[in-house]
């Protein structure tokens, strides 16, 4: 990774203090540390800056609601299937407590929000995954919501965009969770048969079961810069091959180099890019009459 500091020197907006000098002393709540350059960032500024480090451009994780807010036209969103609730099909010890804690912490019922909205006036069905909800793992509810989204898109002939983020399958739901890969992939294949556009946007991190199902099945696959995208977890690979992994392994840039995705799009250009793609696929603006 080249040192990009110099490039940004001119337009530096924030006071940055090196990690080594301040360490963990940043006051809780107000400040946060950049995961890439180690700079200390004022959280309010971070939020108004699309969750980007003003110093190095590092893309912070966004919640589903934050992502929706910066992606869709204002007040255009109508949520689907919010009534679906997680159950504990295997009686897996501790699962109900884990889900309850995630609900409390995130204010969400599950790891994805799906619905209908518009981007730059173009109607779109969209899914927004939230990594802070049990690692955005895919259980029955996530699988069902994604499947219903694809089925609606097929019926309405409206393009669908899913912002993926996930640690994989929800192991606490056992085989019900693994089979959501098959269910969502089948719905995706069905959607494809109706010649309706599906764009998958891989955000940090998109791995395992979601990467190996609808995450990789977009007609167009976009990734955010520096996101972790891949199938197998890095610790498992290291234990198998008994070697350190090369730097940059399983990043968006790695995926692009190896031909696994169509492009990397900076968050600042995401809305514009999606708007162009929708337009080029025959999208008609709702406000056009």
């Amino acid at each position, binding site marked *: 990774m080249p040192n990009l500091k110099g490039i940004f020197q001119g337009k530096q907006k924030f006071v940055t203090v090196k990690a080594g000098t301040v360490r963990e002393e940043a006051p809780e709540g107000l400040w946060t540390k950049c995961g890439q350059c180690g700079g200390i960032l004022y959280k309010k500024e971070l939020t108004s800056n699309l969750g980007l480090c003003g110093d190095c451009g590092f893309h912070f994780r966004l919640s589903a609601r934050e992502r929706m807010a910066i992606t869709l036209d204002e007040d255009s969103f*109508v*949520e*689907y299937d*919010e*009534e*679906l*609730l*997680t*159950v504990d*099909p*295997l009686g*897996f010890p501790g699962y109900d407590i884990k889900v309850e804690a995630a609900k409390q912490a995130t204010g969400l019922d599950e790891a994805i929000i799906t*619905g*209908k909205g518009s981007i730059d006036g173009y109607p779109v069905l969209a899914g927004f995954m939230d990594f802070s909800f049990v690692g955005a793992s895919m259980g*029955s*509810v996530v*699988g*069902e919501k994604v*499947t219903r989204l694809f089925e*609606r898109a097929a*019926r*309405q002939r409206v393009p669908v965009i899913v912002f993926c983020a996930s640690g994989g*399958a*929800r*192991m606490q*739901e*056992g*085989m*019900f*969770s693994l*089979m*959501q*890969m*098959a*269910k969502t*992939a*089948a719905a995706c294949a*069905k959607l494809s*048969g*109706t010649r309706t556009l599906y764009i998958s946007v891989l955000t940090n991190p998109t791995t395992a*079961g979601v*990467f*190996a*199902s609808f*995450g*990789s*099945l977009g007609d167009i696959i976009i990734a955010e810069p520096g996101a972790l995208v891949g*199938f197998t*977890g890095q610790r*498992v*690979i290291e234990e*198998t*091959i008994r070697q350190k*992994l*090369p730097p940059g*392994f*399983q990043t968006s840039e790695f995926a692009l180099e*190896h*031909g*696994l995705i169509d492009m990397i799009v900076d968050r600042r250009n995401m809305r514009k890019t999606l708007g162009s793609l929708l337009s080029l696929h025959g999208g008609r603006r709702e406000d056009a009459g």
Partner: protein
Amino acid sequence: MTNLGLEFEKPLIELEKRIEDLKEFGLKKGIDLSDEIAILQRKADTLRKEIFENLTPWQRIMIARHPKRPTALEYINLIFDEFIEFHGDREFRDDGAIIGGIASLGGRPVTVIGTQKGRDTKENIARNFGMPHPEGYRKALRLMKQAEKFRRPIVSFVDVVGAYPGVEAEERGQGLAIARNIAEMARLATTIIVVITGEGGSGGALAIGVGDKLIMLENAYFSVISPEGCAAILWKDGSRAQEAAEMLKLTAPDLKAQGLIDEMLHEPQGAAHKDGIAMARAIREAIIRGIDELSGIPLRRLIERRYARLRRIGEFAIREISASDLPMAAAGNEDMPITPDLPDLEGGCDET
């Protein structure tokens, strides 16, 4: 007698050894010990029944991973009258962890694919311990597309600990290959019979495991994650895999109860590796039954049926919403007609 007994079989193996010793002793000394031997034999039979009728999930996993467990090629040679193996994905290389080709099942041509483990270290290295790379999954897909083209059923044999976790596998798109296979298998215009013979290791198994009929051997397992991996996540301790195995509900009886597989095949006394021929015969009968059941269904209906089978999987609750909260405006133009969205079925279609 195998020297590869599992821990829980030890009392049985000791008893069997005593019977052997007694037989030898009687023969050497010219004494008739047949009564004693018969008693011990009955005791051994009871013990065997007791052990194998009360297997824990972890014991089943041990059996599924048994080094003598019959492999896909062994079953294929026993089940089919003729098997011609094909190689390669036409793009990168031939992956030894995936085998495939065409075979004759009582005169009926079928395409056969499967994951292949080795018998010894040398074979296992060639087969990468049965863990496929993306090119293996692409080879399987190529052969399945070929089956669709020539309208022959597909039989898939699954016994895989998982897709290979390696640097090159990631570079060549392991996740994409699995996703592609699952999506394609969901819509393939031919009958697909899946037989899980040993390990059903997560996405790496699902990549050749989507079909119209899922058959599973009694001591096979199919799981979202390995019990070791699950234990490592839950307790940072992979050695507690036995507990995780209980929690994951991954055995054939569990999955049958959950409605996630169609048929469970009982294994011979002492598990499949004790009598591969009998096991193969049972699998052959189940495959023929499956193909016979499904062959009468027109292709369009078969694909719809397969979709419906996947579509209903999932367990969730529905929150009550009061009528005033219903977002009426959201309904929009949802009533557009559903136009055909099935794959192109032109040319020699056998539906009526």
